[in-house]
């Protein structure tokens, strides 16, 4: 089967999944997601005001009509305005995505780099004391809650030692990267590196057992060359796929870091939206992240198939 047909089939398969996501989110939040009218109406609102607000938000319409509106919003990509702040939802995502990425991309890159280096070292020395020590260390590291890392890390490194600013964000990419994002990134790494090390170690060990490695050894190639060139090249495939597929989930998962370090990112915005029952943002976030997840999966698959000659489009 050729690439175009494969792509077409996969994209086609996404439609029912997206429909499921849309339906589920719509039902869950419309049914039980809260009624923001009471907050928006202020401290002294009367039932007339509530009715007026509900009417303006459109939550007094029949469910099927609201669902249709939701579907139309997805198709047009226009989710209207936030109920709490009246900011266009598209604007919210456009402006909050940047800070999230400034935090996440370096984190992901560093995480992958560190994890590969450690995993290679561990794999080269497997069974040794170093291997065991590193594995135990990484297990301990990932056993501590991110909440503790943040609370203690912010207190010790930003406040007591004063190595970093306690919080903050600017409009300048470089300043953010070199000043404000450093501590959050490092703290995030504390919990995220260890699982990657463990996973990549298995990828690498998988490759080490393959025939081509034995062949290479027989040809007299140095152990280092085998590991760094041959093994790594092949292990890179699952690693890259893994990184790619993990990205969308990270986008919402960094809310703890964003809140404590006052970074205006997506995760924090979503928590805020849920607290305010700001349905347009919740809907849009779900749809966007779901789409990103599906596309990332597809991209991962494509990459996997493109790089690994053993897998064919089917």
């Amino acid at each position: 089967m050729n690439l175009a047909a494969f792509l077409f089939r996969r994209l086609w398969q996404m439609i029912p999944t997206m429909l499921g996501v849309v339906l589920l989110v719509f039902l869950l939040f419309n049914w039980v997601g809260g009624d923001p009218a009471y907050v928006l109406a202020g401290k002294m609102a009367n039932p007339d005001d509530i009715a007026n607000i509900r009417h303006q938000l459109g939550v007094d319409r029949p469910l099927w009509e609201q669902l249709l509106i939701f579907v139309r919003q997805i198709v047009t990509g226009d989710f209207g305005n936030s109920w709490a702040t009246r900011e266009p939802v598209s604007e919210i995502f456009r402006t909050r995505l940047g800070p999230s990425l400034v935090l996440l991309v370096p984190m992901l890159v560093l995480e992958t780099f560190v994890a590969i280096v450690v995993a290679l070292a561990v794999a080269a020395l497997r069974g040794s004391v170093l291997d065991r020590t590193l594995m135990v260390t990484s297990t301990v590291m990932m056993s501590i809650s991110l909440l503790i890392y943040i609370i203690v890390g912010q207190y010790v490194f930003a406040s007591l030692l004063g190595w970093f600013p306690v919080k903050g964000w600017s409009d300048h990419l470089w300043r953010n990267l070199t000043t404000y994002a450093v501590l959050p990134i490092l703290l995030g790494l504390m919990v995220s590196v260890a699982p990657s090390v463990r996973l990549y170690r298995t990828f690498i060990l998988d490759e080490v057992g393959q025939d081509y490695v034995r062949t290479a050894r027989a040809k007299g190639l140095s152990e280092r060359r085998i590991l760094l060139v041959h093994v790594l090249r092949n292990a890179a495939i699952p690693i890259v796929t893994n990184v790619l597929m993990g990205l969308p989930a990270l986008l919402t998962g960094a809310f703890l870091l964003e809140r404590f370090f006052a970074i205006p990112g997506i995760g924090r915005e979503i928590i805020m939206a849920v607290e305010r029952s700001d349905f347009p943002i919740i809907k849009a976030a779900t749809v966007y992240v779901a789409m990103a997840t599906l596309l990332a999966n597809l991209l991962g698959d494509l990459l996997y198939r493109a790089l690994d000659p053993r897998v064919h489009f089917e």
Partner: protein
Amino acid sequence: MLGAGAATPEKVLHLELSAAETGFDPVMTSDLNTASIEQQLFESLLTYDYLARPVKLIPRLAAAMPTVTDQGRTWVFGLKRGVYFSPDPVFKGQKREVTAQDVVYTLMRFMDPKNRSPYKFLVEGRIMGLDELGEAARSIGHFNYDAKIPGLEVLDRYTLKIRLKTTDYNFSHAMAQPMYGIVAREVIEGYAGDTASHPVGTGPYRLARWTRSSLMVLERNPNFRHEIWDFDPGSDPESQRIVAQMRGKTIPQIDRVEIQVIEESQSAWLSFGKGELDMIGLAGQFAPIALHGARLKPALAQRGIRLDRISDPSIAYYFINQQDPQLGGMSKERIALRRAIFMAQNDEEMIRVIHKGQAVRNAYPIPEGVAGADPGYRSLLDFNPGEANLLLDRMGYAKGADGYRRQPDGSPLAVRYTSSLSSQDRELDEMMKKALDRLSIRFESEKLKFPEILKAERQCRVQIRLSAWIADYPDGDNFMQLWYGPHTHENNGSCYQDPVWDRLYEKSLTMPDSPERDAIYHQLARLLELNGVTKVSTTHIRNVLFQPWVIGFKAHPILPSVWSLLDIDVNRVPQP
């Protein structure tokens, strides 16, 4: 932080907000965080004197205090001349002066259903002809801003006559709210749909940069009129010191105000400690780091950090839903049960453990600093678990085999306490559980998001809750209305509908602040206790800490922000 080539360094004030702002169209604002910024961008007709205590109204955009005639029904406001809006492309390069017509437009906006204004209650039902315009807008779909109504009459370019439907001595307070800051029609219409991000007012500052829910930068409004800092200190030595430092300076002294949203209180506190913030409202749970009782800890005082504390014009009060099938009703048993529940609340422990001493016991519905307050008021419902238990025993709430009390008719009894998901509310859950444990009453917890709590409360579905109210304006009525029968489904969360009480309250409405009104207020407060409707528990203390280089700060109970009245001693600001 030096401006390029500038001889004098720029004065910058760094501040925090504990929750994100919502947007800067005053008519749509409901939260104090946003209002604190709007206070600097927009100007209302009146405002409060910075130093006078008890607080006193003074003119802001008005040239003088209004002339009130016709028993508080006719108000004539004269405007200052030569007041200009901050520059905006909408004005096409022209300087745009504020006129009486702008005031009319601003007031009309509150009744426009499209704006769904949270603060319209301050004018609703008051101005002749205005509510009718709002009604009409609902039926025809748009608000007629060109209509002439008897309540809002422009006498000349700078003079406005407002006619009220009934006597209302609190109308002047409404005109001092930051939400009632004057806007220009062409700006609102020019940015229709996006007014929240185009604040154009006459205040000392304008919004220079805005990263939503993260950072707001205010800079001087170049069109701000020449105004001189001049307040009377009275006898307070701290105020006298401030006056000595500030009198005669032009407003504003500070060039830029940078406000950052910091939701986690640990982050805010650590930032202040490092000097990244110039001022901070000390969160109650952190009081022990900074304060020793009412005083600053020596370590901070040595760094020159200063503290100003005032009693917040607010109350925290328990209420029980009077229409609840299990707790409501006026039978003796139910009244006794409710009063017993209130008497089991240990306010002293709440102040000490949860508020870390930064609150005071206040049993009266009107807090200190608000007209009608009575700090000497003694409650019938003070902590007294012994008597509460005896009362329950006597009323037939016998304990079952499981050790918990049952209703007099033998059916099971459990009290459901409603609170939000925040960690502060988790501590309050603990307080309520301890209280009910003291009475051997089964405790149930209902955790809801804040919007859901409001909804449940408005629908009279809450059983018991600890709620809070902060003064919109410093008059007792703003508090007493919380139990008015017709306000059920609005903000009378106790759903208390008692003809005796309502009659008394309505009588109080026709009176200005006076001993006669106070007498009625005392009866109202006592009735709430006797009938087991509410227990007023505590009043918070607001602690503001500021760095040594901040000059002229004094906490104000009502004004949401006073930044334009401050100064910074640039020589003391640490250089990076």
